[in-house]
């Protein structure tokens, strides 16, 4: 394989990156666009994180200290929207851009110009969303789930800008997914059959189909809101014959697949890292693929478990309870596969592996609380309390976000040609690990004890654990500055990485030099 690359090495000189700002504005190179996505998502992670810090500072003690309830609601809304649409999703798209072409042996993404467009509309979407903070009446204040009629009849005027921003984010996601699907379906190297694809590629193929299926549903929901607000319709207005519950059905028909969109690529990443550092082939490749596909299909028939308290008929409650419980089966299969991969391996604990192991353990804890939430009668007590907040932060922070960090440490030698500082990486891991658990574990307890979510103030019995949770949050927040420092330090220099980087790494991306040349696989490699 290396022979193939060397013989085309001369071409690279004619196709190197352009200089200056225009390189980034006009680029159609999947590696450049991947980097843009990743930096953008990190910026959003810091902004959304700063909002989380405001929230935790306000909740540090009972009583109102730092902000007003009105602004608090704006913070929790923007925190959710930015983290979901600005941090986690673009980070995964960035990883897909960097890795999918290299993993399938393609020279670039299939639709490079659309790739450029799908990234460059994102900053505008978030500029519009964030600018609503400075508008009369303030930013959206109705939660990231924007339930009507709070988000329509009772919303601040900036809701229209929010709707426009969501439309742009949706367009970006759809274009990104089309690109991923077309690349994977048409540009795999000869010999790479579907069942030989790396799991990250599989996870993204499934994710991309989910995105294409549900993003238009979200666009429909916000368009109906727009009509209600400006054009006199009554889709969600009971006074005009509309149906506020319809909004929730539409939103969660998008929303539940959306939460798997934010976790499936993490499954792919964890699989690669665990097999690499266990120096042992992944256990149960085929069952991993089937598990991901089952989770994706089930995600379309479980949405109403977010709505157990809206007054659904008994038959619906039973159906959605059973269907939701069923998701535990394929999810369990994945966890068992990861553990069995480690069993009888030869395991070393570099930073990516630490993050991946923490991902498996803490995601599983989030899965357990998810199973508890599926039990409808118990959900009547859990619903909309801090127990739910703890649950979804466990699957999103030490779930999705840990997997993204693991991926950065794992592939950054390939991206930059330099090894990161292992000592600092481990320090970052332990600070994040402790911070995340101190923040979110006590939230299970205060939720069970009866603290509702989305409140700026609380009764006195919740004071102790809220304070501890806030301390954990500040620790976690501060550790991410260290993360930025480590990444910048690695970009600037460091120990040179070999092409294979890790002793146990397998796959096409490890056959090219480190850093990966600007153009890779201009002639497709042959896969046996």
């Amino acid at each position, binding site marked *: 394989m290396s022979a193939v690359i060397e013989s085309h090495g001369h071409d690279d000189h004619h196709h190197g990156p352009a200089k200056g700002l225009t390189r980034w504005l006009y680029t159609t190179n999947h590696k450049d666009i991947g980097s843009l996505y990743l930096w953008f998502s990190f910026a959003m992670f810091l902004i959304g994180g700063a909002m989380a810090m405001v929230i935790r500072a306000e909740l540090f003690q*009972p*009583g*109102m200290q730092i902000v007003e*309830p009105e602004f608090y609601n704006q913070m929790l809304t923007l925190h959710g929207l930015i983290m979901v649409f600005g941090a986690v999703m673009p980070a995964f798209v960035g990883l897909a851009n960097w890795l999918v072409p290299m993993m399938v042996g393609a020279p670039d993404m299939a639709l490079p110009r659309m790739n450029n467009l799908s990234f460059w509309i994102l900053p505008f979407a978030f500029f519009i969303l964030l600018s609503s903070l400075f508008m009369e*009446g303030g930013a959206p*204040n109705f939660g990231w789930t924007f*339930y009507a*009629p*709070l988000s329509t*009849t*009772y919303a*601040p*005027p900036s809701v229209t800008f929010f709707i426009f921003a969501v439309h742009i984010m949706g367009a970006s996601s759809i274009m990104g997914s089309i690109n991923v699907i077309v690349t994977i379906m048409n540009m795999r190297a000869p010999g790479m059959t579907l069942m030989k694809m790396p799991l990250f590629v599989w996870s993204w193929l499934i994710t991309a189909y989910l995105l294409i299926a549900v993003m238009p549903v979200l666009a429909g929901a916000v368009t109906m809101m727009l009509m209600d607000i400006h054009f006199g319709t009554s889709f969600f207005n*009971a006074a005009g014959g*509309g149906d*506020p*519950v319809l909004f929730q059905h539409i939103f969660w028909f998008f929303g539940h697949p959306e939460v798997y969109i934010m976790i499936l690529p993490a499954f792919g990443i964890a699989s690669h890292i665990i097999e690499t550092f*266990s120096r*042992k082939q992944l*256990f*149960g490749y085929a*069952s991993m693929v089937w598990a991901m596909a089952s989770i994706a299909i089930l995600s379309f028939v479980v949405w109403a478990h977010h709505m157990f*308290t*809206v007054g659904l008929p*008994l038959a619906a*409650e039973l159906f959605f*309870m059973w269907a939701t*419980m069923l998701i*535990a089966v394929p999810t*369990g*299969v994945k*966890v*068992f596969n990861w*553990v069995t991969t480690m*069993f009888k*391996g030869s*395991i070393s*604990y570099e930073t990516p592996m630490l993050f991946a*192991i923490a991902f498996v*353990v803490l995601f*599983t804890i989030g899965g357990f609380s998810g199973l*508890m939430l599926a*039990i409808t*009668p*118990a959900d*009547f*007590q859990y619903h909309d*309390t801090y127990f739910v907040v703890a649950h979804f932060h466990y699957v999103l922070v030490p779930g999705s976000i840990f997997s993204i960090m693991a991926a950065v440490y794992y592939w950054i030698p390939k991206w930059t040609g330099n090894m990161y500082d292992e000592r600092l990486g481990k320090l970052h891991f332990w600070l994040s690990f402790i911070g995340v658990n101190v923040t979110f574990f*006590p939230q299970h307890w205060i939720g069970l004890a009866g603290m*509702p979510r*989305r*409140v700026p*103030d*609380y*009764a*006195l*019995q919740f004071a*102790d654990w809220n*304070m*501890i949770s806030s301390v954990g949050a500040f620790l976690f927040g501060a550790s991410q500055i260290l993360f930025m420092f480590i990444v910048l330090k690695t970009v600037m220099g460091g120990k040179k990485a070999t092409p294979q980087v890790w002793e146990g790494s397998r796959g096409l991306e490890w056959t090219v030099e480190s850093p990966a040349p600007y153009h890779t696989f201009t002639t497709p490699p042959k896969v046996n």
Partner: protein
Amino acid sequence: MLYINFLFLRYSQLGKKLMFKKAATSISNKFFAGLIILLSSNSFAAWDDLNMTEGVTAISKEVFELHMLIFWICVAIGLVVFSVMFYSMFAYSKKRNPNPSSFHENTKLELAWTVVPFLILVFMAIPASNTLTKIYDDTEGDINIQVVGYQWKWQYKYLEDDIDFFQNLTTDWDEIYNKTPKGEFYLEEVDEAVVIPVGKKIRFLITANDVIHSWWMPDFAIKQDAIPGFINTAWTVVDEPGIYRGKCTELCGKNHGFMPVVVKVVTQDEYDVWVQEKKEAAFRMAELTEKNWTTAELTERGEGVYLKNCVACHQVNGQGIQGIFPNLAGSDIVLNDKERNVEILMEGVQGAAMQSFANQLSEVDMAAVITYTRQAWGNAENGDGKIVIPKDIVEYNKPNI
């Protein structure tokens, strides 16, 4: 406050036992002590503070048992999975096991860990489905109470007895803004509790007037969304008299965190007395409507009504919040247009947060609060100073639309 002291005490006692006496008050040790409470088998009492309430009804106890059952199932599965994982991490580290094994498939094993979890889930689904079916018993109650969510208060209508009142938070804003010490039931106290008798089937018919709210009473295991245009039902039979506290659990705007629910469960005799008192109070209110009111009397009464019902949006100084809630101080309607002023209060404003108060306020209170806004903040001097008397409200005609 009491509660916190109690917690401190418990932590420090535990700390003593575990020789962390000196630092027992520091945050890190509180956390550590909390973990120990959780992990040590002889301190299950502490679960009460960190766990779901068992509640006081047959249903709430069943729900609690389901919660504990699924919790222990998760703990058991977790122990198995994580022990294998941690064992592998230790025993198969690169140092101890330099040569990895090469197996990567085992159909029997994979089949087993698909089928066994499925069977566990079926085992769990059976009691859960049974309890759920019981909760969905939709037969009539002995007492039917309509619960209506408003931004940010609850209205209760006893359908059989014609009782109708609102429930507002009574915690002082000075407590919330840390100007005065916080009381024992901070954010969990209201002006008027929902009163129900023991041993009767109470059915709640839950809806909302503006946005979606959610009526949650943990001790009865009832959480039901209050949705405009829908009437959801929930029922309970409570056998233990007492005062039970819950909250709104659906984000409903600015003061979502400040609309608690309080239910007082009393004996049948006490309940009958309460019903009688409520009826007499309604009669006295009707008499007040006939009375001849002076401007000063109306303004004084109106200030109280305003502070309870209007300040959340229009603020104490009447100036509202720019861009969302209109300014009343110096507003043209409040100054010079008495008819439109009354109409807004009676009808609400279509497409805005301003709701109709026609069903929320008595004629006397309605007249008083309008008069108050037309007199306060210099409005009397700057406008026509016309007052509104209860008779104006009684004779108010719905506008033709």
